């Protein structure tokens, strides 16, 4: 068997001399690394810069009021006295109220989509629920002002008052705007978030555990109660906290329906205000530097809250996912 060597085949060393690669190719690796690293550092820098800047903006308010800002109910631009207490109260009530309503609804929807709905319609219905999250908040607020508010005022609240008026919570005044419509709007905004995250968490429950319960003769609900829910509990808590973060930070839709009257009272049907809502409402001319700085102080509070919520939620959701991966 002859292998003709008609043309001399070049020695390998010549081939490896790297003639095949132009200068761009050689430095391409390094260039890509530097470019992408720069982008990554930029992203981190944005977060740090944001934190720094808003703290900087808030500094004059902080130096004037200190931590007492958080407990003072004053908000008087004329006298130059500012305090966040009323708004903190509003934020807490609105977001907790929203999560109180949103959590069971979201869990029910997630159960529906993972256990009960006919398989063929699961993606479609799931997509529809997620589309709810895609509605711009200003449009939900518009709907809240013009449709939901009057509806509640004319139809829902009178009934509530008539039937449950003996409970102080439902016995007071009500109007077109207030905390209650804001809670409902926030519920609408947080349900898609909490339910889609809960749905993902339910999907990590090992099917063998579920089958084991059913094989013992459990009803579907009993299986869910004994297997799915306990397994998912930290994840659900994480999802709820994430939803809480969303509710706390929502400015636009809330400011449209809440009535922008800061006060602390137990009647959720009266107008109120929240931290985010107040900031949004002041865009048309916070007069003094101190006022602007106080609004920045609000922003700092919101940022710290979002930081805490995000980190805690992440930890909880991760713990469920890593658990399922290791036992998977």
């Amino acid at each position, binding site marked *: 068997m002859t292998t003709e060597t008609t043309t001399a085949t070049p020695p390998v060393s010549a081939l490896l001399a790297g003639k095949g690669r132009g200068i761009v190719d050689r430095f*391409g690796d390094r260039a890509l690394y530097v470019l*992408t690293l720069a982008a990554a550092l930029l*992203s981190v820098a944005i977060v740090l810069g944001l934190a720094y800047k808003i703290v900087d903006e808030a500094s004059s308010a902080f130096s004037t009021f200190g931590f007492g800002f958080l407990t003072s109910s004053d908000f008087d631009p004329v006298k130059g006295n500012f305090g966040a207490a009323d708004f903190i109260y509003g934020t807490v009530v609105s977001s907790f109220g929203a999560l109180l309503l949103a959590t069971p609804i979201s869990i029910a*929807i997630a159960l529906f989509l993972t256990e009960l709905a006919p398989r063929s319609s699961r993606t479609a219905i799931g997509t529809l629920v997620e589309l709810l999250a895609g*509605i*711009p908040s200003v449009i939900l607020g*518009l709907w809240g002002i013009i449709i939901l508010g009057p509806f509640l005022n004319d139809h829902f609240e009178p009934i509530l008052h008539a039937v449950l008026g003996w409970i102080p919570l439902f016995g007071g005044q009500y109007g077109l705007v207030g905390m209650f419509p804001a809670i409902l709007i926030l519920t609408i905004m947080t349900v898609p978030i909490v339910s889609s995250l809960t749905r993902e968490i339910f999907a990590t429950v090992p099917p063998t555990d579920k089958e084991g319960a059913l094989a013992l003769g459990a009803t579907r609900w009993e299986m869910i109660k004994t297997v799915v829910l306990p397994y998912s509990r930290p994840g659900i808590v994480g999802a709820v906290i994430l939803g809480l973060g969303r509710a706390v930070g929502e400015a636009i839709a809330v400011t*449209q329906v809440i009535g922008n009257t800061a006060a602390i009272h137990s009647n959720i049907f009266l107008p109120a205000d929240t931290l985010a809502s107040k900031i949004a409402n002041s865009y048309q001319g916070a007069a003094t530097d101190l006022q602007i700085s106080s609004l920045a102080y609000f*922003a700092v509070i919101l940022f710290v809250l979002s930081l805490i919520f995000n980190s805690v939620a992440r930890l909880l959701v991760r713990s469920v996912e890593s658990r399922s991966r290791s036992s998977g």
Partner: protein
Amino acid sequence: MESTRKPEHPLLAARSGNLRRRRAANRGMEISAWVAAVLAVGVLALVIASVAVKGIGSISLDFLTKNADPNALGSTGGIGNALVGTGILVGLATLMAVPVGILVAIYTNEFASARSRNTIRYFLDLLNGVPTIVTGIFIFGLLVAGHQQSGFAGSVALAVVMLPLVARSCQEVLALVPETTKEAGLALGASRWRTTVSVVVPTALSGMITGALLAVARALGETAPLLFVSSIFAPTLASDPSQPLPSVPVVIFQFSESPEPAKHDQAWAAALVLIAVVLLISIVARILSARMRRRLGAAR
């Protein structure tokens, strides 16, 4: 199905204990779940229907081309300048956020150690969770305070909102590219950067486009970041980003706060335009995403 089976046999009935009660509880759960799902879809339908019904009447060519004047009385004007303004603001924001987001995703997928990857993901998640009104205050302090509002500052604010969305979806999509596809590229004698740029990224491309589209849909509807940064504008058609530019969501916000019913009508019409565009983009993005997952699934 389970809940409709009746134990006929006395033996089974004896062992079923409080089966009736248990089955009732099960039924109750099923009903609640159905109710919740119907509620969610119902609210969605309700909101969209309200916008459609209330807005359709005011839509006209005039409306789409005339300029918005929040201070003018009556129903004169339209959203022409707001449409142009939104286009410019979101367009510039996309040009800023998408390349950076893609590059960050490439970094975490190709170069980062596990620890850097987690750190960067953490910061991106944080950024994603920052309330948009806070982002507005940030950009206000950075670019507006001491100067004046500008469309450019508005785009930067929107870009900051978009960045974590783009980065996260690109990260997920790049991670889906099968390792063997990358190996095929390397084995052919492509350098690492060449493999990334000519093999990995194109494989993930439709997923990246989906991520970008969803981020754009989000940015189109954002009001809060713009309030302090690009909200005081003249009722004329403006396209210079060094000046504050009007935008559709901000205009809707201002109209909605107005006491005049005529302005409310315009708000509904603008909302109809906005929601139609946002929903359209979201649906296109999801179709693209489903298609890409199918294709990559075949390759695994």
